[in-house]
């Protein structure tokens, strides 16, 4: 008999042959010294392998066990979100107070007049619509959303998709109104949607039609969109509506938010607040708003009664009704008719003195004042000496700060954007990072030990965002001076770049946009640099 194969020997040594095969091999080995030796060597080899493979493991340290995310982690996460949210608010306000005004333009959140106006309006809507979304609810709601995003990311890293899905379903169940049994949708794109006078709907009603007429009762909220929306009946909740013409004649228990060309309240009883956006916003003579009222439009008229404050934003703001507390009119002209009764203060935010007109006979319980909006001065600021002086001071401040930054972090001097694609990519990265960085910080926050790290991440992000324009200025400067025979000093390139950046962000109309774009691009450059560093560090 010839000697069995190497594989057979190996399997025999490991005890893996069937009994018949093993018997055949043993019979052969009894007469073959070479095979006996070979089997013995293979057995020893297997034993050696077992020892050797285990040897390396006895020395390596054991990392801490990280249990999968639990409900407790989620509570910690929410608490962290709230903490960081509060911290960031405090951080920005402290930073804004601490930084000399010459450096304030570096702040990405500092920008032009138009933007200010827009944010003012947004702030007003967000923070002063207490009936629908109070500030606190907003904050907690946002915290929940962010926490769930973080939670999902966390679950994804654990490669357990179903937990993520369950979490998001739960989130949807908690965050959204229970859609199934509390929502009625009626739509008729080519005709009317009518809730007749004897009809009662015990749900939230969403109505979409050419015309929407609510004559009956809605025991819930009403969301209505169409060409014409008329509410003559009774809505116990809030009304959110958009139409060419919006008329409310009935009773609304909650807040009314109406947008359209014409938004008017006729004989309406509004349980809480009224916010109207339109060309003409009119609180008619018989209307009664228990809470606050605000109108945004070309013409804003208040003829009815407002239980608390009234704010009117428009070209012409007219008050002839009764306001229990303060009236603020923002407009070219603010007129108070003789029939008006104002319990508190009257303030007209107008273009020039005399644009707040108060007719004889009007009753004003508090003070009456005019605040001149410095629109004219703003318009002509390019002609004043002070403006240019201010820009020179800004340039000097930014130059010194940028110089310090580039001196401290030499890698930033070498950053470059070779082509348009790179610019776009950096802007994209900047935008993504500006959005995801806080989320990343939150994820780090999951462990208690991670919290200081998260705060640090957050602060670094804020600082990066703050200096991004200086970094970009350096790149622009290098681009401009690249044809010099000798490479210019970074101070020179920074200076040239800063001049260009300052001019760009002070351009009329597009300055605000340029500011945003430059900030995001610069931030993207910083983030890319850091990522490249981390990568090279990891592979080295």
């Amino acid at each position, binding site marked *: 008999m010839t000697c069995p*194969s*190497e*594989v*057979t020997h*190996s*399997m025999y040594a*490991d*005890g*893996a042959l069937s009994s018949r095969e093993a018997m055949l091999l043993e019979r052969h080995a009894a007469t073959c010294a070479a095979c006996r030796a*070979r089997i*013995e*060597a*293979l057995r*020893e*080899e*297997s*034993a*050696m*392998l*077992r*020892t*050797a*493979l*285990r*040897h*390396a*493991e*006895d020395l*390596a340290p*054991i*990392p801490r*066990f*990280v*249990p*999968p995310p639990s409900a407790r982690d989620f509570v910690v996460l929410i608490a962290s979100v709230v903490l960081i949210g509060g911290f960031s608010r405090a951080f920005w306000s402290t930073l804004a107070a601490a930084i000399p005004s010459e450096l304030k333009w570096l702040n990405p959140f500092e920008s032009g007049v138009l933007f200010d106006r827009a944010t003012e309006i947004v702030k007003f809507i967000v923070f002063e619509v207490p009936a629908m979304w109070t500030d606190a609810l907003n904050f907690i709601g946002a915290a929940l959303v962010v926490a769930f995003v973080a939670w999902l990311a966390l679950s994804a890293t*654990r*490669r*357990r998709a179903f937990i993520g899905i369950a979490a998001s379903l739960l989130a949807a169940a908690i965050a959204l109104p229970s859609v199934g049994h509390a929502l009625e949708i009626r739509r008729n794109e080519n005709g009317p949607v009518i809730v007749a006078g004897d009809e009662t709907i015990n749900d939230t009603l969403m109505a979409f039609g050419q015309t929407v007429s609510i004559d009956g009762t809605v025991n819930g909220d009403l969301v209505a969109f169409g060409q014409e929306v008329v509410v003559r009946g009774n809505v116990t909740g809030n009304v959110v509506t958009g139409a060419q013409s919006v008329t409310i004649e009935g009773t609304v228990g909650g807040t009314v938010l109406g947008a359209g060309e014409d938004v008017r309240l006729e004989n309406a009883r509004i349980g809480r607040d009224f916010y109207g956006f339109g060309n003409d916003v009119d609180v008619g003579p018989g209307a009664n708003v228990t809470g606050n009222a605000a109108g945004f439009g070309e013409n804003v008229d208040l003829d009815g009664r407002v239980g608390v404050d009234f704010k009117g934003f428009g070209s012409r703001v007219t008050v002839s009704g009764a306001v229990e507390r303060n009236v603020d009119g923002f407009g070219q002209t603010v007129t108070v008719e003789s029939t008006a009764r104002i319990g508190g203060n009257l303030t007209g935010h107008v273009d020039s003195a005399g644009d707040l007109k108060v007719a004889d006979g009007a009753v004003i319980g508090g003070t009456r004042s005019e605040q001149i909006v410095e629109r004219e001065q703003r318009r002509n600021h390019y002609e004043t000496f002070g403006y240019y002086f201010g820009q020179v001071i800004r340039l000097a401040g930014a130059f010194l700060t940028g110089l310090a930054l580039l001196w401290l972090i030499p890698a930033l001097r070498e950053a470059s954007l070779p082509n348009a694609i790179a610019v776009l990519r950096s802007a994209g990265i900047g935008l993504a990072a500006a959005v995801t960085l806080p989320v990343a910080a939150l994820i780090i926050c999951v462990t208690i030990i991670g919290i200081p790290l998260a705060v640090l991440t957050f602060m670094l992000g804020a600082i990066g965002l703050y200096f991004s324009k200086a970094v970009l200025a350096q790149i622009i400067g290098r681009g401009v001076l690249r044809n010099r025979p000798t490479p210019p000093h970074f101070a020179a390139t920074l200076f040239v770049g800063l001049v260009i950046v300052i001019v760009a962000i002070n351009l009329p109309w597009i300055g605000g946009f340029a500011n945003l774009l430059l900030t995001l691009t610069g931030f993207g450059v910083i983030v890319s640099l850091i990522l490249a560093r981390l990568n090279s560090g990891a592979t080295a």
Partner: protein
Amino acid sequence: MTEVAFAELYTAHYRQVRGLCRQLLGTTERAEDAAQESFVRAYRAWASRDPAQPFIAWIMRIARNHCLDLLRRRTREKALFGDEEVETVAAEAPDADGLGKALTNERAAAVNAAVAKLPERYRVPLALAYFGDQDYDEIASALGLTRNHVGVLLCRAKQMLRQELADAGERTLRVVGGRERMSAEEGTL
């Protein structure tokens, strides 16, 4: 099952689990992730575990399956373990005589380095057999191969190891008489 109690099991068995993962996956970094993941899976699935079975056997099986999943995700199974006949021919080719009858303890690092260099198709069954202490049938069913195919792969794996070790340090390779001798040397180190 409290987190503390589980952490104790974790500390007791982590090295072994990571070892299997490292042998299977080839790098320490991936092994640490895989070991963590295996324990996380065990933690989650604690209720569904068979209490009659020792924890170590259970966690090692979880780790093995997880690592094989990771490997399969990268390579199709057929390609991963090759063709049995081709391997058999290769296994019968003449080769250096024995992986030393034994290797001393001080050569363990060299053996580990050589194992890490093996292609996956050889490293995986080798790790399961000699680190995971699984018999050929268990390995065959885990990898979806025949028992004979496992035998061929292991035989080839050891041939390659011998070759690699011979190339890497023939001069330092000390062939010693047997395990007794090896243990004696361990004592002197």
